[in-house]
């Protein structure tokens, strides 16, 4: 795990991720400016850093209701504003970017942040960016596979020669600057299906698994498929971290937590995805077996530890700012994470590793 800068003795990592969505608060109908949203994301990262969280990441979405299209620029600002927290993308759509430029950007962020930068590369769930950035959506899969592979090669080789279908060839090309510690951790973003996870397994790269809802056990199959595929492809799974992401919110009681967060998630999904989150399905978040980490601090701790038992993952990423959530609510969450959730998780998962 050292290659991916993960020290399992410290226990499972806890981080935050944002898609950089820019949506009106459904309770007030008001939307803050894009400038304020970006500044609040940077401030959120700073709070997370102060609170001792392990990771903070920002995604790119090139469509209406989003504001961090230039996510690497936002990450550069976060690199400057923070001291210890690891930072990354969630995700970088490598299909519609030049891997050389992406690597230059993130290696630079790594130097600015003193060795804290990572890349999570994804394929995009919405596809408007293909038109916007001049790519053919018919090449959706091939573009990702070729460019992701090139990104991995650049990570391993300062100089390389490369030829492919979707980018001009590289002849003994040197890609600079290099990251502080030789390579960057590069993860593959995976949707909820085993087929998608297996692709990360074949390549032997860390997997960041996104979850929306449903029982945690349903995602265990995905994690298992990933590890099994990696093993069969000759990779050492004890060296491959798994990350899991999902909705997160805490309040005094689970009822308060559901009440406070549901409208944001429901409205946010409608605007960004075209369909809300069915209330009936969201109500099942009350059950400990649900992958949605919404509830009282104690309930959420129990859920996260239950998920840890199931997945044996190395990092959990909470999404808690989706759908116009006001900054005060996010700051409050970070307080609870720092005071109650992190200590409990580290105590349990750190100790387990020593045994």
């Amino acid at each position, binding site marked *: 795990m050292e290659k991916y800068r993960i020290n399992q003795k410290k226990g499972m990592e806890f981080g935050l991720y944002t898609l950089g969505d820019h949506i009106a608060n459904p309770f007030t109908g008001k939307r803050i400016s894009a400038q304020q949203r970006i500044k609040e994301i940077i401030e959120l990262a700073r709070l997370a850093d102060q609170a001792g969280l392990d990771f903070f990441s920002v995604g790119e979405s090139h469509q209406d209701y989003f504001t961090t299209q230039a996510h690497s620029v936002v990450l550069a600002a976060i690199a400057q504003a923070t001291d210890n927290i690891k930072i990354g993308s969630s995700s970088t759509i490598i299909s519609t970017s030049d891997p050389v430029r992406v690597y230059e950007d993130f290696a630079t962020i790594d130097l600015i942040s003193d060795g804290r930068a990572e890349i999570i590369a994804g394929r995009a769930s*919405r596809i408007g960016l293909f038109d916007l950035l001049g790519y053919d959506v018919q090449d959706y899969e091939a573009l990702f596979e070729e460019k992701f592979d090139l990104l991995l090669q650049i990570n391993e080789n300062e100089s390389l020669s490369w030829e492919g279908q979707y980018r001009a060839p590289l002849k003994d090309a040197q890609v600079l600057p290099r990251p502080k510690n030789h390579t960057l951790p590069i993860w593959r973003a995976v949707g909820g299906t085993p087929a998608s996870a297996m692709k990360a397994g074949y390549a032997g790269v860390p997997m960041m698994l996104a979850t929306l809802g449903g029982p945690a056990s349903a995602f265990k199959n995905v994690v298992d498929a990933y590890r099994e595929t990696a093993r069969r492809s000759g990779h050492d799974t004890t060296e491959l971290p798994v990350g899991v992401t999902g909705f997160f919110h805490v309040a005094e009681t689970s009822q308060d937590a*559901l009440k406070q967060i549901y409208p944001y998630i429901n409205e946010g999904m409608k605007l960004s995805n075209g369909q809300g989150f069915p209330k009936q399905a969201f109500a099942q978040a009350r059950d400990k077996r649900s992958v949605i980490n919404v509830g009282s601090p104690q309930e959420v701790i129990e859920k996260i530890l239950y998920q840890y038992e199931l997945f044996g993952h190395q990092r959990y990423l909470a999404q808690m700012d989706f759908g116009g959530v006001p900054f005060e609510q996010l700051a409050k969450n970070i307080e609870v994470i720092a005071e109650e959730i992190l200590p409990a998780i580290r105590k349990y998962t750190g100790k387990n590793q020593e045994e």
Partner: protein
Amino acid sequence: MNIIGLSGSIVGSKTRTVMDVVAKEINEKYPEADFQLIDLKDYDLQFSDGRNYLDYSGDTASVTRKIMEADVIIIGTPVFQASIPASLKNIFDLLPAGAFRDKVVSFFITAGSSKHYLVADYQLKPTLAYMKAQIVQTYVYIEEKSFRQKQLIDDDAAFRLERLVEDTVDTFEAAEWVRKKKEDSYGF
């Protein structure tokens, strides 16, 4: 109540003829409903390529958005090659899985003969169920012989259509009652 009448064929006249009867019935009996007719003949739709419906442009974007915003969808479809026409299946393919959640969907079928009366049960209903529609179980099957010079001349068919519209609206009201009661019970 936002009702869409979806005439699912781009050729022929029977489906549209019946849809006009349905529209008239709704306008007379339920003037408060917001009824909109979408005749696929009037639109230039692209084939589904799997993208999110919000990522299409032009007619494909406007038709899919209207359907996603509807409370009730009344589908009219002919039978082609022992199934629904590709134009209607394309609408289903353009929409996300679960697109009909919290929507009531009813339908009528127009056909040349009685041979294909099970198309609804074997082909249309499973798709609607998969997409989470609240399906109105009874449907109306109308044959060629009920038409003359692009008019519906069969009183029995007209009576059945009246009942279909009534059942559709009743089902919507009942489904809404259930949904609201359930959502209120969650307390959030």
